[in-house]
């Protein structure tokens, strides 16, 4: 799996370590006894990017972050930042600051003193003026003399951010920084964080298990699972062209249908999917053997009455029966039972062009071949699926 990260992570000829100006992790491994939390990880984070490390809890993303911060010592491998090897540097000697999940604000200091902490340790000049400016940036200027416990969760979160940002680190690490906030506050903080990142132009590495949060904020997302990076790329790239069943299921939802590969042409792979021939562009086919999982996102599946013309030059898959309908307003979610017994999810936008179907009705499905993807059959088709989303 690590070769996936290598091929997608580093360009064909990566810059040598000494001249790379971003953060580079090479063969990074961290074991706790017999358990390997991070397994031979290679990662390049370009300078100035908003990078998200996305994965379920226990996938090793926080351990990776803590190694970059210096709070955890790698078992092997190296970390270089702007050409400097910082693998074993003490945390207080790294140009890296962290926004902790629990904020970790100093309860015995007021907001002003909290934010000034890093500057004072480095004997910076004009500390008060800088702190004032930073508190204004996060809109907490009037709260400067309060103690952390007197602020709300969202305000504490902004203090934690200000306390790290004021040091102008090479890399700002954010460990699930919005995890403790309620949904509405989280949405507005996401926008705020993104705005601040663009304003200050620092490298942000954001660790999260919330795929929506990672996709809205980051320009590059690395999906991590069991200590390795499954896939890395822009949010749209990951979503549209997942390379593994884990990514397909963890980022949004996917229908994965078993099929036999019948022909591999230069630009098109043909698959016999339960007796129906479907084609998939070669650059979206990531299966090695004879068998594969044909993947299609629920919103890419078109639904219609038997014999109706669907807007798709692809094949029509007949014989579906609607087994469940949930109307959510902007869209309708159908579960369609196919002749081979599998239930396919379909999200239909309520544009008014098509009527709503009722449970028990016979329908046909279709999709454009360029939206489908093909995954390796050796992978677990349910890997990464979130039960509470279903």
């Amino acid at each position, binding site marked *: 799996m690590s070769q996936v990260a290598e091929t997608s992570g580093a360009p064909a000829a990566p810059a040598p370590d000494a001249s790379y100006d971003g953060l580079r992790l090479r063969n990074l491994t961290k074991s706790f006894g017999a358990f390997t939390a991070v397994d031979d990880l290679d990662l390049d984070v370009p300078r100035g990017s908003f990078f998200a490390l996305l994965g379920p809890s226990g996938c090793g993303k926080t351990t990776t972050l803590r190694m970059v*911060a*210096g*709070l955890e010592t790698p078992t092997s491998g190296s970390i270089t930042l702007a050409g400097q090897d910082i693998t074993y540097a*003490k*945390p*207080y*000697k790294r140009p*890296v*600051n*962290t926004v*902790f999940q*629990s904020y*970790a*604000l*100093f*309860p*015995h200091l*007021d907001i002003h003193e909290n934010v000034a*902490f*890093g500057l004072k*340790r*480095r004997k910076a000049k004009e500390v008060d003026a800088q702190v004032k400016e930073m508190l204004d940036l996060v809109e907490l200027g009037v709260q400067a*003399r*309060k*103690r952390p416990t*007197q602020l709300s969760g969202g305000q504490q979160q902004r203090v934690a951010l200000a*306390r*790290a940002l004021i*040091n102008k680190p090479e890399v700002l690490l954010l460990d699930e920084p919005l995890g403790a906030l309620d949904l509405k506050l989280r949405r507005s903080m996401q926008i705020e964080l993104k705005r601040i990142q663009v304003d200050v132009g620092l490298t942000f590495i954001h660790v999260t298990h919330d795929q929506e949060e990672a996709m809205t904020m980051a320009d590059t997302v690395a999906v991590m699972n069991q200590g390795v990076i499954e896939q890395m790329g822009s949010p749209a790239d990951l979503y549209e062209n997942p390379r593994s069943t884990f990514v397909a299921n963890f980022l949004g939802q996917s229908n994965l249908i078993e099929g036999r590969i019948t022909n591999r042409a230069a630009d098109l792979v043909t698959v016999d999917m339960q007796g129906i021939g479907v084609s998939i562009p070669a650059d979206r086919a990531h299966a090695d053997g004879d068998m594969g999982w044909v993947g299609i996102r629920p919103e890419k599946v078109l639904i219609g009455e038997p014999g109706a013309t669907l807007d798709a030059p692809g094949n029509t898959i007949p014989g579906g029966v609607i087994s469940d309908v949930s109307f959510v307003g902007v869209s309708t979610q159908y579960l369609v039972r196919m002749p081979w017994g599998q239930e396919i999810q379909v999200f239909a936008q309520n544009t008014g062009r098509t009527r709503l179907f009722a449970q028990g009705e016979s329908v046909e499905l279709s999709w454009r071949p360029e939206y489908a993807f093909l995954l390796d059959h050796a992978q677990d088709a349910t890997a990464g699926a979130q039960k509470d989303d279903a």
Partner: protein
Amino acid sequence: MRWIRNNLVLLLGIAVLIYTFIPIAIVILMSFNDPNSRLIYSFDGFTLYNWQNPCEPDGMCGALWTSIKVGFLATLFSTILGTLAAFALVRHDFQGRSSSNLLIFMPMAAPEIVMGSSLLALFVAAGFAGQLGFWTILIAHIMFCLSFVVVTVRARLAGLDDNLEQAAMDLYATPSQTFWRVTFPLVFPGILGAALLSFSLSFDDFIITNLNAGNTTTFPMFVWGAAQRGVPMQVNVVGTLMFMIAILIVVGGEVTSRRRNAKLA
């Protein structure tokens, strides 16, 4: 009837407070007593004489001074040693940590009379039989204060969020800056509490002290001895003073924290 039912909790609370404060009130009252006889303990008339001549009873102020010296030194040593021990027990994983954690409770759990007599046996066996006095009292007091310090500081330290120290280091604080700027200020209330507790434990200990004191007399020992012959009224002066100092510390702490909160609000 209805009024009593509605205010029962309040009434009970007041009753309990009265019950606790009557002895203290008697002590304060008696410090102004002008007794007719040393043997009958009753209020015979108001006077300021006891307050103007506090050191009149033979040996009382000497005993008081001994108690203060022992209390101060025992507090100093047990607080330093106990704080260091608490850090070791919470922060470092070493062989025998869990048994140390258990053993530290022993002096608190063992009856004082057992602790006192075994210490005496130890001192005698070690050949200090002729030198019992100030130093053996001090050693005994440090010993029993130590457990209370360790337990108090350890509780405070265990409740401390690890992330705070990591955050300090992440914000360029060296290990010693992290300790003095973050760890110590946050643990300090626990250390202060432990020190106050140590002083009051040391100041009024009688059983262990009496067994290991030799010819030295502490204030509790003086009071006990005097009680056989009739307690001089000046004892009440000392008692009142101690009570007032304790009240001042508590009220002072409360006022500072209220003032700080008021300034912030």
